């Protein structure tokens, strides 16, 4: 009997479950700790003086609020522009890669799209800085947007391409047989079916742009700050409670957007 149960249980290893829970604790503990301490009433991060939202009030009305508001506005504007442009480019590229047959430059195009994922981020940052320096483009708001557009393309491309591969081509073939033009098929059939992939690609690109520190830090002009560069500057002088409140807010934005992206791609019932 004992032998039989061992055989049935050939998949489970004792201890693996415990390691999995340890893994989740490791992944979430630092984030939870920062979230909890952002509600600390104390002026110092060393002690816990009870629950309070006053660091959140400080973020919006305190002495540093103007700086952080400007940084937040920059971050969101850059992320919105970069995610929109990179999603459009990625959607077209995915159509060209997945709905346009095999061709000579296909592997090369694919390599080009995934290039920003292969290269260490600091190398991308150095190369982009050198590029703007060589062409004499003054560093500022625009340089951040250009750099983010390029960096976000692969992140937008992956869910879009995955979705497109899952769409049954016979629907488009049927429309073509019924004398729809290719353009009509694209806008009336392919794009609507692609929507979950496009939304999910857009959200991921948005988060990647919103979160980027290294590339932004290299290509930004003097005086232009995004939330991550402002947070980094502040952290260099020590972790203060208002930083924890900002971090918690930014963290929540990322978690909410990833969750939306997850559930949108879950609506994938057609395939």
């Amino acid at each position, binding site marked *: 009997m004992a032998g039989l149960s061992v055989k049935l249980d050939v*998949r489970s*290893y004792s201890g693996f479950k415990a390691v999995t829970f340890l893994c989740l604790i490791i992944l979430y503990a630092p*984030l939870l700790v920062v979230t909890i301490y952002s509600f600390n009433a104390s002026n110092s991060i060393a002690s816990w003086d009870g629950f309070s939202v006053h660091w959140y009030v400080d973020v919006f009305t305190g002495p540093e609020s103007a700086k952080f508001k400007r940084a937040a506005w920059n971050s969101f504007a850059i992320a919105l522009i970069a995610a929109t442009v990179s999603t459009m480019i990625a959607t*077209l590229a995915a159509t060209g890669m997945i709905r*346009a047959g095999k061709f000579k430059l296909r592997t090369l195009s694919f390599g080009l799209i995934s290039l920003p994922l292969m290269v260490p981020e600091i*190398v991308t940052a150095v190369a982009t800085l050198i590029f703007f320096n060589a062409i004499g483009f003054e560093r500022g708001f625009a340089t951040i947007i250009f750099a983010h557009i390029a960096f976000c393309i692969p992140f937008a491309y992956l869910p879009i391409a995955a979705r497109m591969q899952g769409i049954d081509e016979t629907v488009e073939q049927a429309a*073509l047989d019924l004398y729809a033009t290719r353009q009509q*098929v*694209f806008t009336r059939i392919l794009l609507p079916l692609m929507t979950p992939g496009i939304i999910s690609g857009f959200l991921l690109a948005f988060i990647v742009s919103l979160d980027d520190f290294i590339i932004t*830090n290299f290509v930004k002009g003097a005086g232009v700050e995004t939330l991550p560069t402002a947070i980094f500057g502040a952290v260099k002088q020590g972790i203060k409670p208002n930083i924890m409140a900002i971090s918690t807010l930014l963290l929540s934005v990322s978690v909410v957007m990833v969750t939306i992206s997850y559930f949108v791609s879950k609506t994938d019932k057609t395939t």
Partner: protein
Amino acid sequence: MAISAPDGEPAVSNTYHKSRTWLLLPSWVVLGALSLVPAILMLVYSFLTKEFRGGVIWEFSLAAYDQFFFDRGLFGDDSPTLDWTYIAIFWRSFWQAGAATLLSLAIGFPTAYFIATRPVQTRAIWVFLITIPYWVNLLIRTVSMKFLLRDEGPLNLSLMAVGLIDSPLQIVNTNLAVQLGLFYSYLPFMVLPIYAAVERYDFSLSEAAADLYASKWVTLHRILLPVTKPGVIAGCILVFVPSLGSFLAPDLLGGAKNYMIGSLIEEQFKGNAGNWPFGAAASMILLTIVLVILIAFARQQSRLERGRV
């Protein structure tokens, strides 16, 4: 992060082959101008002369690579001897990234295996739980880690409250802190490819081994690990490569003594050293190492794939 090679995809549809060029043109232009051209310019800059307040003078020079590898004495006229300063920084980065990779593997493999053996309906939720932290700002995650590990931070306080230690462990500003930071940054990258490999694993192999009286751990070692090797290697690469060039973990958790490649490069462009050609050369050396690792990986994967068929 893991992209399957385009050749491995199902049959390619042909509907838009006439507009192919126009569809791909925007990505060619944008990525060509902002990824490919900058990489080439970086190579060019590494062979130029440095301008003292940042930037370059357009004059060919090998000074950057010379500075990286050789010591020519205080006045630069001694005969060159191998200089270990920068090589040691690269070596330390390898070692730190390697330690973080092993740690991720030790935690990541059991986790990936556990998730892949859950009922099909719940797997997606587990994977989702593992991926969420990856999408949280890396800077915030690193700062959180520093907050947690601090001398008077929650980890030390709770260890002291439980009575395991009497005085706080000094973790921040040590090699260990950097390793933990890198491990924490890239742990999800270890889990996902191993998960994908174990999910495809045919458990009748384990059952056959059990029928032949192999113990579970022998089965793990002799059958499961070799079969899921491509996933394990992919996970190791996905943790090792970004760790190697990382900037935030060594900068925030390591302090000045635990310098890595990322900090060395950053300093050439942002800090006081301000030597652009040297920074470009260090970036080129890092990029070359990473490309060699990735090419070796791609060849290994295709060899393993062929071995299977």
